[in-house]
């Protein structure tokens, strides 16, 4: 079983990570709550908007910049430019079609050059091989708490895989890793 302290967070700097699943956006805002400016790159046609009022429970929305692009090519160009520049420590990229190896590698190189972190929000099953880690995030129902989530790391280039239950503490603005009650190793899927 994975111990709560093993969770590889914060995300490794100067690399590009991936998050998928229904809780990917929550994962992104928790990653952004670490501090510093955030650039959120998304395609303008997407109807699901980010709600800054909801965001304010995690971090100050005035630190968020939004780049609305026409298509994924522009999204990637903006992301690469920003990662290479390094003025913004975290770039969140919403991906709508799978990245090929070249695109993924270019993002990694840009992040390395600018020493900033990238986080791609991908539709399920569209991961790229170049990603440093890939997280699968799902919200979990819990009778006593309404922020419980399960974060599962399903790809890790420099570590092991694992699964954690986390909850967001809104008063202290930090992430609590909790051990799920009544769950044994291997029964992680039982709660579904």
């Amino acid at each position, binding site marked *: 079983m994975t111990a709560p302290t093993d969770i590889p967070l914060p995300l490794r700097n100067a690399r590009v990570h991936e998050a998928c699943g229904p809780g990917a956006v929550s994962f992104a805002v928790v990653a952004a709550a670490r501090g510093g400016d955030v650039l959120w790159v998304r395609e303008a046609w997407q109807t699901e908007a980010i709600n800054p009022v909801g*965001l304010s429970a995690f971090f100050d929305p005035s630190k968020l910049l939004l780049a*609305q692009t026409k298509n994924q090519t522009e999204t990637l160009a903006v992301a690469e430019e920003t990662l290479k*520049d390094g*003025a913004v420590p975290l770039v969140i990229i919403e991906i709508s079609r799978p990245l090929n190896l070249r695109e993924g590698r270019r993002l990694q190189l840009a992040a390395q050059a600018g020493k900033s972190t990238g986080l791609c929000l991908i539709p399920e099953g569209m991961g790229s091989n170049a990603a440093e880690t890939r997280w699968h995030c799902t919200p979990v*129902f819990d*009778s006593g708490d*309404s922020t419980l989530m399960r974060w599962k790391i399903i790809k890790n280039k420099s570590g092991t895989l694992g699964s954690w239950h986390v909850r967001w503490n809104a008063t202290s603005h930090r992430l609590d890793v909790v051990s799920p009650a009544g769950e044994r190793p291997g029964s992680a899927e039982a709660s579904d």
Partner: protein
Amino acid sequence: MWFPRLASDRVLRRHPIDGPFALTLRQANTEGVHCFNMEAERQGLYRGMSFTDARAFCPNLQSRPADPVGDARFLHVLRRWATRYCPWVGIEGDDGLVLDITGSAHLFGGEPMMLTDMRQRLNRAGLTARIGLGDTRGAAWALARFGEGRAEAGQPHDTLAGLPVAALRLEGKTVIALQRLGLRTIGDLEGAARPPLARRFGPDLLLRLDQALSRQPEQIAPLKERPHYGVRLSLPDPIGLFDDVMAATSRLLDQLCAKLKAQETGARGLCLTLRRVDQEAQTVELRLASPLRDAARILPLFERGVGEIDAGYGIDQMRLEATQVEPLPVHQISHMSSGRADRLNDLISRIGTRIGLENVQRFLPADSHIPERGFIIAAAAYSEPGGPWVALRPRPLRLFPPEPIVGAGPRPPERFRWRRMCLTTARATGPERIAPEWWLPDENWRSGLRDYWHVETRQGRRLWLFYTPQNPGWFVQGEFP
């Protein structure tokens, strides 16, 4: 130089109209005639009459609303044009120019030739102008408006004596009072005894008289030339390589930035025009997220635009202009003012060259309890990060257009299907009633009140549902973290 029909001439230059034409201006809640053309004057229109009267006088009158700001701008353009005759050009009222041509008349072959030249050029431009020339500013004013012509040097009295007293730049009241006294012309006034006049009308009348007859000096205040932020470079041989063009741009930028620095301003928009050997011109436009005058920071922003230029047979002339300029005072640099904001602005400019500066946005709080209107999205380059964000109740992280689900009754359904998922309600918190803002019509809120529920499903998803009691139906509008 007086332009009696400046406003209407300006409009007619662009859209020529045969027949009577007038510009209307709304003043004191009535539509009045502001300016009209010759045709309309012949029909008996006068300035300031109400527009309905004018229509009655002249049924086929065509009209258009006046634009006094545009007229003032046009007058400034004319002022700049008039500097071809002499460097001292000022503006007189809202439809006149005053030129001090002392010492420059001989360049045009004497005063009469100069006047002919002015008239010809203005005629060709389609402007009605009346030009008076005299020893003093007052005499020129009088001649331009009452009896066009030119006063011989040294004898202003002879020319002016026959003109009415209104030519002395007096108030209407004074003019009427003088006429009642029987002093109708300047000659009459000149012949009258001065002390009683001064006692009755104050010193202003005599001052104007003296100014017209060159007994009192009067200056012309030329308008200050606005600083011009444009530089150009002509090349002996055409260039076409990217590096060459960038090197030339760098030289232009250095000059421009020196100009900006001298004026303590910074460029917000730049336009680089590249003229090719075959007379084709191509432009690279650049908009910046903050005013800048640092050549080293602006130059890399041009790389993308210059890279896309088709040089053809080569470029032999380049022009760089700051199209938008903002004041940028010198700042004290301290250890506190890190370059963070600068770096961020540079980044916004750089992204803006690719996706458009208005597509880099930030959120600003707005005062509304309607969830979709609780924030404003503003272009990051033209706004400052805004103040406190307050969420009185938990709000979802994602909002989407309401998606209908099957459900009945005011309590959230036990089971429902949403996006092809079967979900079971485990806990529902609510309702929170939000009423539409009746003062702002909104299509989406036609269905009336909304009762919002925070529904946690057994499957994990935490959704924001609402029920519309006035128009029963259930919808999903957002998702919580």
